[in-house]
């Protein structure tokens, strides 16, 4: 990094640190609300409560940690200032989303966040980055607009978009009205925020954008930006649709599909960051299931609410850790293909320990933070199945299966990077790439990695004391009574984790080792065409719709319709004339009318031409400079020149005086213009006609006389 870049980096590091300090201070201050009326015509309003305090803390912590890694990561990269500037802007915007007390304000900051984070995705400017950024932007805009429409419908129905008042307002609205409009609004908002969260079927941007973004940005994209989407989903599901079975079931299904699909995609991927990205999608699915259970259970849904909240926080911290590990690997090798990364982590103890803690955490192994939230989510599902029965028990099994898949793909990554011996190809590649680096990680980055990793077991071991208190703080936002204490390590709860671990081991041994590996190499078994974006979204937007409208344009547009209309009128008129043809009185009348119309249209067309011609002849006469070159080539000029030369020889003319040449040329010009005027004018036409007539007369006379 050059001097300016270092300065900008230092400044943004300072700013993120300041934000961290402020968030800590805010944590201990009492909550309150403020509003800025009239801004953006609608007014913005913010509020601070337990949930928001915690998330502000998580956000500013993550930002600071990734900034610590950034100095080393971005050394040797281009356009770093751009990244740092938009990074800070995004932090501001996302804090705006979380602090907003109504959905309108949330949307405003949500949109700003989408656009500033666009720079993250496109930062590297590789072909893949440009394409992924296009997808990201499209999804962001679709999501934003859809949420805008939903919020606008909501305001129309309920008269408010304030998150804390949504439940009461919706209840009042439902008493007198059909909830159809409310469902529409909710679905639109869900589409908007769900797209950002990465919920199926709008998840397509996620597996593409995360791998191409710089690793610190990927950590934030996956850890925090997706949560801003979740924030909106919670606001709707735990507000407007609390205790609405239909809505809860819909969210449940979407969450289950997202959870399973993400896990499967992660298992199939052979790219480190893509695996982590798909894993994010899967974990969002877990969170969505928690939201669905909270929504279904209403006030009783304390367990799943606590699970949702804690899984959000855990997933943020886990993905911070894992993506930072990926970033450390990437800044050494500039490669993410598992076959080339193989065995890179051997002997790198800090990296290995950090990654292991992250993997154990996300796998939900007892003693680590993921276990706490997954157990709560599981208990939530069990509780909900008491009310809703069969569907939920199916979900419970998929939940355990996805947990197993999580363990399987994390094992795959861990074994590949830290356990397997690198093959010949990989070893040479790694040597060549990291030859110029004295150490694989520097001091600041190492500290950041260590801190982000050590938090995970700390959280995992203090389930009752720390984690449930965090959950308790957010009870106001979820509108649920959070559990005070729980026996996390009871046999019942350990059983769930055990089943998942068994499934995970089985999948790893049977699927990963047998099916997803060939000749000792990891292979991508996902067919290329299996991409929702390529099959559905892009063709629809870029091909089908323009083709339809292009066809319409070809038929109607661009003047053709007027001609067609004119012809149609004429046909109609002549048809009418024929219809009345027998009638002697009407026939001449209609014919006359037809002729009149013809004359009028022609006159109108000619009038237009006349004006244009008039303009072209007067104010728009082309300004042509007298071209000397053309003059010198004319025969008259040359003729005059030879006369000049003979005069000069006789001493009657000065050296540079082209008297005769000019004179001759002027004569020629006059002649030309005269003939031009003659041939162009009406009188010339008359003259020619008269001459022709005379000639004919003479001929006739001649023949008559002599014939």
């Amino acid at each position, binding site marked *: 990094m050059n001097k300016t870049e270092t300065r900008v980096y230092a400044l943004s590091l300072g700013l993120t640190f300041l934000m961290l300090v402020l968030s800590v201070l805010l944590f201990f201050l009492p909550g309150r609300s403020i509003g800025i009326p009239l801004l953006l015509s609608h007014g913005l309003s913010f509020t601070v409560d337990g949930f928001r305090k915690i998330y502000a803390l998580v956000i500013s912590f993550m930002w600071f940690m990734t900034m610590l890694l950034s100095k080393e990561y971005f050394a040797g990269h281009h356009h770093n200032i751009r990244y740092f500037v938009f990074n800070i802007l995004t932090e501001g915007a996302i804090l705006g989303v979380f602090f907003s007390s109504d959905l309108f304000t949330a949307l405003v900051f949500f949109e700003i966040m989408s656009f500033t984070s666009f720079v993250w995705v496109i930062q590297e400017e590789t072909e893949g980055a440009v394409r992924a950024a296009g997808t990201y932007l499209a999804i962001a805009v679709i999501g934003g607009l*859809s949420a805008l429409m939903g919020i606008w419908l909501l305001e*129309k129905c309920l008269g408010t978009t304030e998150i804390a008042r949504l439940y009461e307002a919706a209840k009042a609205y439902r008493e007198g009205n059909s909830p159809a409009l409310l469902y529409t609004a909710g679905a639109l908002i869900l589409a908007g925020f769900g797209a950002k969260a990465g919920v199926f079927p709008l998840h397509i941007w996620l597996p593409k954008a995360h791998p191409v973004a710089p690793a610190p940005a990927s950590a934030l994209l996956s850890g925090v930006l997706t949560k801003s989407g979740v924030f909106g989903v919670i606001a709707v599901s735990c507000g407007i649709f609390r205790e609405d079975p239909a809505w809860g079931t819909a969210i449940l299904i979407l969450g289950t599909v997202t959870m399973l699909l993400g896990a499967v995609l992660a298992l199939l991927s052979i790219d480190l960051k893509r695996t982590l990205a798909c894993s994010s999608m899967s974990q969002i699915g877990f969170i969505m299931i928690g939201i669905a259970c909270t929504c279904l259970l209403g006030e009783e849904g304390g367990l799943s609410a606590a699970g949702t909240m804690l899984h959000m926080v855990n997933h943020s911290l886990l993905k911070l850790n894992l993506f930072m590990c990926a970033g450390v690997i990437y800044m050494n090798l500039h490669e993410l293909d598992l076959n080339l990364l193989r065995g890179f982590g051997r002997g790198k103890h800090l990296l290995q320990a950090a990654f292991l803690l992250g993997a154990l955490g996300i796998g939900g192994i007892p003693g680590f933070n993921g276990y706490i939230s997954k157990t709560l989510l599981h208990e939530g599902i069990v509780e909900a199945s008491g009310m809703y029965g069969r569907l939920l028990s199916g979900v419970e099994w998929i939940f355990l299966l996805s947990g197993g898949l999580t363990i399987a793909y994390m094992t795959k990554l861990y074994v590949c990077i830290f356990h397997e011996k690198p093959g010949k190809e990989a070893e040479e590649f790694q040597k060549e790439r990291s030859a110029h680096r004295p150490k694989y990680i520097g001091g600041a980055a190492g500290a950041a990695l260590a801190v982000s990793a050590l938090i995970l077991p700390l959280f995992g071991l203090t389930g009752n004391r720390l984690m449930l208190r965090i959950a308790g703080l957010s009870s106001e936002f979820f509108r649920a009574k959070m559990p005070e204490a729980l026996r996390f390590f009871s046999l019942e709860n350990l059983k769930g984790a055990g089943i998942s671990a068994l499934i995970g081991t089985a999948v790893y041994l049977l699927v990963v080792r047998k099916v997803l590996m060939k000749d000792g190499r990891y292979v991508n078994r996902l067919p290329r065409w299996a991409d929702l974006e390529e099959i559905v979204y892009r063709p629809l937007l870029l091909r089908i719709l323009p083709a339809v409208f*292009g066809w319409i344009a070809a038929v109607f547009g661009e003047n053709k319709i007027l001609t067609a209309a004119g012809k149609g009128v004429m046909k109609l008129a002549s048809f009418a004339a024929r219809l009345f043809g027998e009638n002697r009185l009407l026939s001449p009348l209609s014919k006359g009318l037809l002729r009149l119309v013809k004359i009028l249209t022609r006159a109108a067309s000619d009038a237009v031409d006349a004006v244009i011609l008039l303009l072209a002849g007067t104010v728009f006469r082309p300004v042509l400079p007298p071209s000397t070159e053309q003059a010198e080539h004319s025969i008259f000029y040359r003729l005059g020149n030879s006369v000049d030369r003979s005069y000069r020889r006789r001493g009657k003319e000065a050296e540079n005086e082209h008297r005769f040449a000019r004179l001759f040329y002027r004569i020629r010009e006059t002649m030309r213009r005269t003939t031009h005027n003659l041939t162009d004018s009406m009188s010339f036409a008359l003259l020619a006609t008269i001459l022709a007539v005379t000639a004919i007369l003479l001929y006739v006379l001649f023949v008559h006389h002599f014939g």
Partner: protein
Amino acid sequence: MISSAFLLPVILFPILSGALIQAFRIRERKTVRIYTGAVTLLTSVAAWLLILRADESGCVLLKFTRDFTLKLRFDACGRFFAGIVATLWPLTVCYAFEYLEDDPRQHTFFTWFTMAYGVTLGISMSGNLFSLYIFYELLTLVTVPLVMHTGTREAIRAARTYFGFSLGGAAFALISILYLMTGETSVESVQITRIFYFLGVVGFGVKSAMFPLHAWLPKASVAPTPVTALLHAVAVVKAGVFSVIRLTYFGYGTDLLKDSYVQILLLGLSAFTILYGAVRAVKEVHWKRRLAYSTVANLSYILFGVFLMTEAGLQGALLHMAFHAQIKILAFFSAGAVLHQTGRAYIYEMDGLGRKMKVTFACFTVSAIALTGIPPMSGFISKWHLLTAAASADTPFSFAGAGVILFAALLTAVYMFTMVRRAWFPGKETELQKNENVREAGLFMLIPMVILAAGILFTGLFPGTVMMHVREIAGSVLAAGGEF
């Protein structure tokens, strides 16, 4: 209070001053510029004085019969339109100074351009539909030379199309206006009245580029950029919209039209035009033509608001009229700056230009964000209000229209941000050597652009004043039925 008698001089002053350039054969570049600049600035100051202080009594210029008069009157709605025009005109003239610096026919350009200013003010100040019609026709006449300014075959063909469309349309409008002045508009003849109203809208719809009468607008983008920017994004097309507003709310009145098939038909047409324009813009690769198609779509946003025939609808329409003006003019200015500096007109030629023309493309990015309707830019405010209006109208058609508006916003993002992306993030593989000699545009171009960009952000954050006026206008018009 300033007497209404002063309205006429403000209209005549630019018209005559423009003509004087031709009459006195002012050819010297510098003289033309100083002269035009002074005239434009003076007119704008005078117009703003009138906007702020003129009384509303009006003055009759000519009296043919009792009802058939030529009358000027400056009411709130007209003031709003005049305010937009009088603010943007000096900026465009400043921009044109640099844009046309190498043009041998600069004097001709400024002649017609200055005259068009007077005529546009005339439209905003006309006191009845007949006067409006006169100025509307005059506007066609003075802007045709501007379209064919470059004198190329293409330009002349475009001018021909424009002229033909406008004259034809105005004829329909005249029929409608004459019916309104002489015919029966009572309850018994309501069907006939609606048909004549439809004819009038079709007539004025030409200038507001409603499908299928939009074809002239993309073609006319061959004109010099100041013309495409000011006339084909603001003055001429908004004059069309303004006339439709006059015809709908002041002429025929909404009582006869609301909830009739005419309203549904027009709502449908404008919704379709929104989609059509946006999709065509996505397909188009010529920068200015793409923006022209975008104008087609955005004008129909305004018309959609107008045809909702509610107070909120009119509010949204007026807001979008003002905000779209500043946004689109900025987008055109950026396109023109690139065209002027590099001669590149196609979108695929923009790769990496953002690094060379930082200010230009920063301004363009602002306009792209605003046009898509992303907060905190002004486009968001008007879009929000249009949507709210559609919701409060509470018919299936208005809901469908709202859906169309949002879908079109997505397409807007597609066609605007492809350019932003190319300019700022060309990608690693792109050859950027051809950009080496590219320079940023001069100050005469940049200053208006930066002012506009700042204006977009400012009105987006603090739309209070504009909102207040719009509310006032819409409230008074719908309460009193509009005296016209």
